[in-house]
């Protein structure tokens, strides 16, 4: 059975005909998160952008200075990721943007298995990472993250947490991981590991936790 009415009133006041029933739950995430990288049950630390957020690359790290997320004394922009959903007629993707500089997490050109922090120069509005439109962002694909495999869970403090693998494009496409696996968990040495893509990326999964609210 499919419902044929629209509960959410449109701003235009018109709800058009039925369209595109979806068959699987799709994560829809917006907000500022710490993103932890987990492999074989071990939390290797948070995704961060080194050099106070100004480095070109991204890695995983834990400051181990406190019980806060990422072991930091306080929320640090280099470890905070602003995540939001973009929808086209055929796809829903998510953008992952670092709070320090507003740059997006982007796959490098040419099908590389490496990533950089980047904004395209095509548009002064950086809503779509500098791409001209939502469709252009989806068509390019390098900054269009698929969250459909993330599951809603709860962390020990009662906050909603999203957990699962991260893909670009569709599941089965390049999956985010890190290589080499850091020698200890959590990782306390910057530069010991780098993000990479592969068909399974060594089964890395990611935890999206909201930062404690000040």
């Amino acid at each position, binding site marked *: 059975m499919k419902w044929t009415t629209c509960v959410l009133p449109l701003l235009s006041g018109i709800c058009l005909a039925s369209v595109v029933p979806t068959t699987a739950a799709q994560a829809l995430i917006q907000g500022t998160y710490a993103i932890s990288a987990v492999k074989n049950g071990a939390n290797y630390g948070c995704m961060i952008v080194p050099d106070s957020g100004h480095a070109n690359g991204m890695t995983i790290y834990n400051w181990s200075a406190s019980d806060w997320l990422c072991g930091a004394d306080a929320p640090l922009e280099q470890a905070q990721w602003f995540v939001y959903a973009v929808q086209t007629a055929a796809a829903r993707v998510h953008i992952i943007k670092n709070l320090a500089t507003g740059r997006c997490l982007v796959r490098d050109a040419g099908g590389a298995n490496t990533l950089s922090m980047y904004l395209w120069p095509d548009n002064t509005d950086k809503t779509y990472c500098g791409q001209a439109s939502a469709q252009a962002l989806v068509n390019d694909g390098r900054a269009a993250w698929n969250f459909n495999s993330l599951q809603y869970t*709860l962390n020990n403090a009662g*906050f909603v947490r999203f957990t699962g693998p991260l893909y670009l494009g569709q599941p089965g496409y390049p999956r985010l991981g890190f290589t080499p696996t850091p020698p200890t968990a959590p990782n306390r040495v910057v530069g010991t590991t780098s993000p990479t893509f592969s068909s399974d990326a060594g089964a890395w999964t990611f935890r999206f936790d909201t930062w404690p609210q000040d």
Partner: protein
Amino acid sequence: MKVLSRFCYVFAGACALASSAQAQVPNLVQGTFSIETPYYVSGSTTPTNQGCMIIGNSGQSDVPSLYDWGMGNYTCGLDAVNWQEMWEVYALSANNTLVHVIKSRVNGKCLIRGQSGAAASPSLYLWPTSSYTEYCGFSNAKDLISNGQAAWDLSAVLPYADSGGIVYYQGPARHAMSPNPYLAFSPLPSSAPSRVADNSWGVFTTDTLNKWELHLKSMTNWD
């Protein structure tokens, strides 16, 4: 097949129907938002934005009100971000109960229904019980939910995408404590959106004919 609930996504002028499998996923709203207030006069299917829910009196007020600055192209008529219009919204859960917290960015205080859930108007407050402001001053999520006054039911605030493709949320907000009244504003601004500060205040209502909704718009731009 039992359908637990129903909703639709709206994008590019179309309404996509959700399957029953999708409907079983709890609706979660999380992020930092400005919040506009679409209002449906009885019988109308076309809302009018009455302004943003803000903390007036230069951020010193304890009760939210409606306002649009009318100065720029940003949300709420602003030409730059103003904490008075920014709200943190996030989900908490304990004992199989999912609620949302709505917190002003002006002072980190939570939007509550005081007087043990009987107050006529919402207000900002932090309990002194603990330093855990993420729980509005309670020690944990369970205590916040058990108390109930800072707990909101946003299960009808649903995602949709605007013409540009960015996903927002819209729908009626209810307080989580019985009798689950809706968040509304009174008196209705004399013009929409309201350009008169500290004039139209947050109230609770059970009126289902003249409907107020919240339209949550996420911060998305970093230039």
